[in-house]
C-alpha cells in the first residue's frame, strides 16, 4: 500500500525536489524501518530486566516453542526459571506494551487527522476522564475484584472511556453536528465534568489513593497473557479500521466541502474514525491505565519521517508507537530496579526531550 506512494508520479520528467526530506520519498523504506525498530524493541524488551536473559538463548527458546509443534528442536534454550520469567512475565508484558503503544499512537494520529488539529490526542473526547472515573469508582467501592476472568478495574475503565466519548459525541450532535470545533468543545466539557467526579470520589476515599494514583499514572507491571488476549480482538479490529481509513482521512484533510465534492461523506467518516479510535483507546486504557504522551507525540515523530499523508502516517505511527512504549517500559523497570517507575511518567520523561531534539534538528536542517 505504500509502494504506490513513492512512485506516484514517477512518470514525471525529473524536476528538482529541494524541500522534500529523504524519508518522504521512500515511505516504503520508512515503514520497513519502523517494523524493524518494533521487532528490535520487542527483543530488547525481553532481554533486559531485573533478571537479564541471554539474547541468543531467548531467541532459541522462542524458536523452540514456535517450531516445537512441527517436531523441530532448537537447542541452546534458557534454563527452567529463566524460561518461566520469559514466558510468564516478560513476554506478555512486552507484547502488551507494544499493543497499547501501537493503539494509542494510531488513535492519536487518527484523532489529529479527523480534527485537523495537531494538538489532538486519544484522550481528547473524555476517554481518559471517563476511564479514570470508572477505575476510581470500582477501586473505591467495588466489593469484588473481578468478574469472571476479567478484572473489575479494566472493565470499569473500558466502560468509563466509552461512556466519556459517547457523551461527548451525543453532546456534540445535539449542539451542532459532528463538526470539528463543536465536538472538541463538547469533549472538553464532558472531560472536565468526569474529571471533577473522579477527583471527588478520590478525595472521599483517601485510603485507596495509592492504588488510584498507580492506575492513573499507567501500569504494565501486572500484565498477564489474559490481558493480552482480552484486548487483542478490540485493538485488532479498531486499528485495522483506522489503517483502512487512512486514505479517506487524506481526502477529509481538504475540508468538508471539498471532501464532499470528491464523493466522501465527511460526517460518516468522522464518526467511524472517532468510534474506532475511541474503542482502541478504551481497550488500551483498560489494561494499562492512563499512559500519556504516546498518542500525542508519536504521530508527530512519525510525521517527521513520512510527511502528513494519513495513508502513510497511520501505519508508521502504529509501529513506532509500539516500539516506543516497549522501550520506555524497559526504562521504567530498569532505572530503579527492582522497583518500577510509573510508565506514564517515563513516557513523558523520555519522550519530551526526544521530541524536543527532533524539533530542534528538524528546524536546523531547513
Amino acid at each position: 500500500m505504500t509502494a504506490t506512494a513513492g512512485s506516484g508520479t514517477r512518470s514525471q520528467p525529473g524536476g528538482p525536489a529541494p524541500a522534500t526530506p529523504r524519508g518522504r520519498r521512500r515511505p516504503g523504506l520508512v515503514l520497513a524501518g519502523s517494523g524493524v525498530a518494533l521487532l528490535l524493541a520487542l527483543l530488547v524488551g525481553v532481554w533486559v530486566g531485573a533478571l537479564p536473559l541471554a539474547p541468543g538463548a531467548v531467541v532459541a527458546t522462542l524458536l523452540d516453542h514456535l517450531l516445537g509443534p512441527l517436531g523441530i528442536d532448537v537447542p541452546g534454550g534458557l534454563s527452567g526459571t529463566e524460561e518461566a520469567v520469559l514466558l510468564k512475565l516478560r513476554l506478555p508484558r512486552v507484547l502488551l506494551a507494544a499493543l497499547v503503544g501501537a493503539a494509542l499512537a494510531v488513535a492519536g494520529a487518527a484523532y489529529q487527522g479527523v480534527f485537523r488539529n495537531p494538538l489532538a490526542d486519544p484522550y481528547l473526547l473524555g476517554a481518559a476522564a471517563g476511564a479514570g472515573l470508572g477505575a476510581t469508582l470500582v477501586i473505591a467501592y467495588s466489593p469484588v475484584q473481578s468478574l469472571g476472568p476479567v478484572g473489575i478495574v479494566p472493565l470499569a475503565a473500558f466502560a468509563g472511556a466509552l461512556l466519556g466519548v459517547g457523551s461527548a459525541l451525543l453532546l456534540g450532535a445535539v449542539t451542532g453536528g459532528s463538526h470539528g470545533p463543536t465536538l472538541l468543545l463538547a469533549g472538553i466539557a464532558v472531560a472536565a465534568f468526569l474529571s471533577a467526579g473522579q477527583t471527588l470520589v478520590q478525595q472521599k476515599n483517601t485510603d485507596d489513593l495509592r492504588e488510584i494514583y498507580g492506575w492513573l499514572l499507567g501500569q504494565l507491571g501486572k500484565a498477564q497473557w489474559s490481558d493480552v488476549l482480552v484486548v487483542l480482538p478490540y485493538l485488532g479490529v479498531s486499528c485495522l479500521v483506522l489503517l483502512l481509513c487512512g486514505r479517506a482521512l487524506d481526502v477529509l484533510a481538504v475540508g468538508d466541502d471539498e471532501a464532499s465534492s470528491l464523493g466522501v461523506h465527511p460526517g460518516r467518516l468522522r464518526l467511524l474514525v472517532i468510534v474506532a479510535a475511541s474503542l482502541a483507546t478504551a481497550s488500551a486504557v483498560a489494561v494499562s491505565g492512563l499512559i500519556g504522551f504516546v498518542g500525542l507525540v508519536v504521530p508527530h515523530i512519525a510525521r517527521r519521517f513520512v510527511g502528513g499523508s494519513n495513508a502513510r502516517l497511520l501505519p508508521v505511527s502504529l509501529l513506532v508507537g509500539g516500539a516506543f512504549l516497549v522501550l520506555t517500559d524497559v526504562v521504567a523497570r530498569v532505572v530503579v530496579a527492582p522497583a518500577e517507575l510509573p510508565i506514564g511518567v517515563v513516557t513523558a520523561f523520555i519522550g519530551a526531550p526526544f521530541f524536543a531534539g527532533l524539533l530542534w534538528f528538524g528546524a536546523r536542517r531547513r
Partner: protein
Amino acid sequence: MSAQTPPEGTTGARVEVVGLSAGYGRRQVLDSVRLTVGPGGWLAVIGPNGSGKSTLLRSVLGFHRHEGQVRVDGVPTNGMPRRERARAMAYAPQIPVLPEGITTSDYVTLGRTPHRPLLAAPRGVDRRVVADVMERLGLGPMAKRPLATLSGGEQQRAVLARALAQQPRVLLLDEPTASLDLGHAQQVLDLVDLLRRQDGLTVVSTLHDLTLAGQYADRLALLSGGRVVAEGTPAEVLTAEALSAHYGARAQVVAGPGGPAVLPVRSVG
C-alpha cells in the same frame, strides 16, 4: 473497471438550476433561482457581497440544504450518489484548505477519489491522469514539492489540477482569482478558458471582478438579494444602471478590447 484513460475532449454537460431556494436558519438567501448553462458554456455569477453567490454554488453541489432542483444533462442531482455526482461536477472553493505536509502530486491525486474505491491505492490510470493534468497546468516540476512551498498562483493551479483530475463534466469555481494579482488572475482564467475550449467543459464560476467576468464568461448572471435580476451576455448585464441599482456603485461601462470594461467613477466634491 478497465484501466483506460477516457479520450481527450470529454464533453461538458448542460446544467439547469430550477427554482432553487436556500437560506441560513430563517434568513432566506436564495429565492427561486433559475439558471441554465449549455454544454461547454461559461456562466459567471456576479453580484454584490452577500448576494448569495457562494451559497448558490454550494447548493448546486448539494452541500447546502435547498429547495428546487439541479439537473446535469437532465438528471436531477438530488438522488445521485455522492460519488457519481463527484464524477460529474468538480469544485474549487474560494479559500481552499491545503493540507499540510503533503506533496503537490499527492494533493492532485485526491481528485481521483471518486474514480476508485475509497480504500484502494491509486492505480496506473490514476497516476497517468494526474501526471497529464499536472503537465498541462505546468505543475510537472512541482510534483514532488510540498504543497505549502508553492506560490499563491501555483497553489491555485494545483487546486484547479485537483478538480480536473476528477475528469468532471462541469467545473464549479468559487472566486478562482480571489487571492491573485491581475497577472496571475489572467493566467488562471486563460487556463480555465483553454481547458473549456479543449475539453468542452462546462464552467460555472463566481467572479467579483466584473471586467474579467465580462471578458471570460460567455454569459453572466447578476444575483442581487437572492434573485437573478439580470442574465445574458456581458454587454446585456453589465450596465451602469445595473451597477448602480444592485451594487450601489458609481461606474461607467465602456467598450473594452475584450468586452465591456467597468470603470469606477469617483464622486466629485
